[in-house]
């Protein structure tokens, strides 16, 4: 999967955040809408779309969307 597609799928897990706020450098945990339920949606999205199981710790250790993309691809 390309980073661009990952960012789009990542953005789809949010309901109220403007789509232009999502870039590879977005520090997603600073977004107002980010919460533990959104974190679960991201884990589930990566499981479904990339067949990769990431953990809560992986999210804790990532700052930007690109960081998470790299974890999901590792």
């Amino acid at each position, binding site marked *: 999967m390309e980073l661009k597609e990952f960012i789009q799928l990542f953005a789809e897990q949010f309901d109220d955040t403007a789509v232009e706020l999502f870039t590879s450098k977005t520090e997603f945990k600073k977004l107002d809408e980010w919460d533990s*339920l959104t974190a679960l949606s991201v884990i589930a999205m990566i499981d*479904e779309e990339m067949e990769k199981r990431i*953990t809560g710790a992986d999210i804790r250790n990532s700052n930007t969307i690109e960081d998470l993309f790299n974890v999901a691809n590792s």
Partner: protein
Amino acid sequence: MEAYIKGISYYLPEKMVTNEDLISQFPEWSVEKITKKLGINERHVASDDETASDMAVNAAEKLIEEYKIDKSSIDYIIFVTQSPDYILPTTACLIQDRLGLPTSIGAIDVNLGCSGFIYGLSLAKGLVLGGMSNNVLLLTSETYSKHIHPKDKGNRTIFGDAAAATLISTDGFAEIKNFSFSTDGKGADNLIVKTGGFRMPKPLDDLTFDEYGNPKSSDYLFMDGSAILTYTLDYLPPIISDNLLKNNLEKEDIDLFVFHQANKYLLELLRKKMRIQKDKYYLYCEKVGNTVSSTIPIALKEAILDETLANKSNVLLAAPGLGYSTGAAVLDFGKHSN
């Protein structure tokens, strides 16, 4: 001889917590978000002086009245709870007395969470097929609200208190077919109330808040949401495949899937992952929330009442649960029409 479900009734405590009530305490939540994401609009919670056994007695009395059951015919009580009245004695013994059931019966407690109904059903079937009982009263009842920290927004939103009463007998409307089980104690720490047992008898007063602002304390219910999600995605699909095999059925033979009703979010995730059609997938958490061991009997009762189960045969039950403890089973409703 076979074993059947002969009756299901349930009881919800009077006190109700709506999404609006939760929003007033957690303004960062929105009613729309809870409804859309979790599919829960209201949940009931036990009052301060109402225990799981009180609720179970109410559910049992409803069952006895609704199905006109002769009390003297009940010869075994299985009480599934993690909220017993006392450390000892066995709460099922107290329930025998309160229901005025014969003293010639057996009564046991089973300590299980969300998988508890399926495991209770398997024990009841064993008692009936083993010729040890003709009418098992299976009671599931839980008051998780008493374990949850008041500031724990997520768990207070998801969980509701309830009790269900199910009669398992030598005849009835749904034959209990074959079971699948799985247990992995490595996951025990991911859904736990750490103190109050004998490993850690005294409260630790160690409340902290995690990066999402959710409270974390050894003295209250703790759930690692991401670990539980991962466990569910890992364990539920294979146990369902195993259970289909054990029942000599294909996925297409199942008329209705009734999973543990954790919340709509998790249920939809599982449905998509297992590619189950929407019209074969039952959801019932909007008015009750996640009632732990009672979600499946409540869903079955509602599916009977709203006629989802009319003219259906094979119903597959599956539940992931804390422990980790996972179970699955098939019920054959034999195209019943009530």
